[in-house]
């Protein structure tokens, strides 16, 4: 039967997946309606998903093709497919060593979405790849009487390896508007780059008026929502403009835009949500707000493995934009943690 033969060979699935493959060609970023070819983005969701901790490593067994075991008839093959977690039409889902990444190997060639070559026969082994660089993070921004204060830790992790222990997660996108980045480091840096580009053009057109925080947040939201399938980025946009004074907007995963008086984000934020909800009050002074922000970040650092390093703060108000940080040994510790006494005294012996 012609249909059965086509179904068996997976040809129909291959035709449909051509469309899927062509559509997954990287980040589309709109600029007044024009799309631009972007980056090929790896969407492994490591470290950010609280449910999957580092201890639950899984193995590669499911890539082994068991369909031919008992015999080569249709029934066995169907059973084999079901065992492997394959659907009726032959699409195969393979869980790779880097958890959360599912690769559709029913078609051959290069899948731009996952960055993987496959032979199309399902006998492929998912390659072990270096874990994606993430900012498992704590970020916070809150308004006070006269402006906003943004805070963040400084650890960028790639699995268990700390790629950067003094990272700066608070990026300037426009004069007096800053972006706190959490999630994939690459994604958020790209978004910050595009936001900076569009806001610079916008500022030139506006003249002396200066960018509003709302405009910056809207641009970030358009990028995040327009590319939601490929992105893993939670961002907080905060700043000061002449019309609305201090403002905080948050764009979490999925691309919502929310106007809030304060916001926390990143993997460490879950530990301090209650603390921040309870202790934030409107119209704090600058010093009160700064110590509140630092305390919140230090609490998150003490519980979250992906947060650490120094505590960076940026204060934005009508007169100033000040970047400061609290060095690692001065970060407050809690419970049984040992406070560092300072940089170690080491003698280097010349050889």
């Amino acid at each position: 039967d012609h249909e059965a033969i086509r179904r068996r060979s997976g040809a129909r699935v291959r035709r449909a997946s051509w469309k899927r493959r062509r559509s997954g060609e990287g980040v589309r970023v709109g600029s007044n309606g024009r799309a631009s070819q972007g980056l090929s983005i790896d969407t492994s969701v490591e470290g950010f998903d609280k449910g999957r901790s580092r201890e639950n490593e899984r193995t590669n067994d499911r890539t082994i093709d068991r369909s031919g075991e008992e015999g080569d008839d249709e029934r066995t093959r169907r059973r084999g497919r079901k065992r492997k977690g394959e659907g009726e039409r032959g699409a195969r889902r393979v869980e790779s060593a880097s958890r959360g990444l599912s690769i559709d190997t029913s078609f051959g060639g290069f899948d731009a979405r996952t960055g993987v070559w496959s032979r199309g026969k399902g006998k492929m082994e998912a390659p072990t790849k270096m874990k994606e660089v993430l900012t498992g993070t704590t970020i916070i921004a809150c308004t006070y009487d006269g402006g906003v204060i943004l805070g963040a830790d400084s650890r960028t992790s790639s699995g268990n390896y700390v790629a950067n222990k003094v990272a700066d997660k608070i990026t300037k996108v426009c004069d007096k508007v800053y972006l706190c980045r959490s999630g994939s480091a690459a994604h958020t840096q790209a978004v910050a780059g595009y936001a900076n580009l569009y806001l610079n053009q916008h500022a030139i057109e506006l003249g002396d008026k200066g960018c509003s925080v709302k405009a910056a947040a809207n641009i970030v939201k358009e990028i995040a929502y327009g590319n939601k399938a490929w992105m893993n980025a939670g961002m907080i946009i905060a700043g000061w403009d002449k019309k609305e004074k201090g403002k905080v907007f948050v764009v979490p995963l999925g691309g919502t835009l929310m106007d809030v008086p304060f916001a926390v984000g990143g993997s460490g934020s879950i530990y301090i949500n209650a603390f921040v909800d309870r202790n934030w009050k409107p119209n704090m002074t600058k010093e009160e707000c700064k110590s509140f922000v630092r305390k919140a970040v230090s609490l998150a650092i003490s519980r979250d493995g992906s947060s650490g390093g120094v505590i960076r703060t940026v204060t934005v108000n009508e007169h100033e934009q000040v970047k400061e940080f609290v060095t690692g040994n001065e970060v407050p510790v809690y419970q049984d943690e040992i406070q560092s006494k300072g940089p170690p005294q080491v003698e280097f012996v010349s050889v």
Partner: protein
Amino acid sequence: FFSLLLTSIMAGIGAGYDLYPTTFSPEGRLFQIEYAGKAADASGTAIGVRTVDGVVLGVEKLIRSKMLVKGSEKRIFTVAPHAGMALTGLLADGRQIVNSCRDEAQQYKRFYGQAIPGKMLNQRISSYIQYFTLHDSVRPFGSSVILASYDKSGPGLYMIEPSGVSYGYRAVAIGQEKQVAKTELENLDFTTITSREAVMEIAKIIYKIHDDVKDKEFELELSWVCAESNGKHEHIPEDLLAEANKVGKQNLEADQFGSDEEMEI
């Protein structure tokens, strides 16, 4: 000297340099664009006045036929919640300008989350109109527009000609009787005039400049965007329009009787 005079009389003005917008004349003029300007002035006058709390637009709509349904011809359009536009000249061209203006405002709102400032909308629409003066595959718009806006920095009034040139104004007139209207507008005090007062003044001016001999009937269309309309561009309320028409007629009659001074020989 004599030959120069002869050529200018004989050839009208263009003398062969006016076939395409892409040809400059020896004096450095683009005749097609000037002719487009003449087409833009070939309809009823439109007036705009910027007041202390907003902008008011008024149009003298010449009624071509007694069978025309009242109010069916619109010359004032809303391009954004806070901005409106009045047209003259070839109205079909003008409607295209309105469409692209609406697109610009919408796109800006989509991208930046805010209403487009009047100044920027003016710049964008001027660039759009100017584009059509650069090619000989398209023709310039035969329509001038008055743009009224009310944004965070206050009221704004702009006028864009078919050449793409645009300026910000306190008061502006385009159309058939624009010279007369401009003279009348210079009498207004722009530092104190409110939108309601401006409505009456514009009505009076339009009634005054309307040429009864050339065109029979006309209909008055007025709109505003001001504090009283909560920053939204809309046609003025019905009762205010009726009052404006009454005031305009009364003022005209008062003028016709003239003063009581005796003539002295």
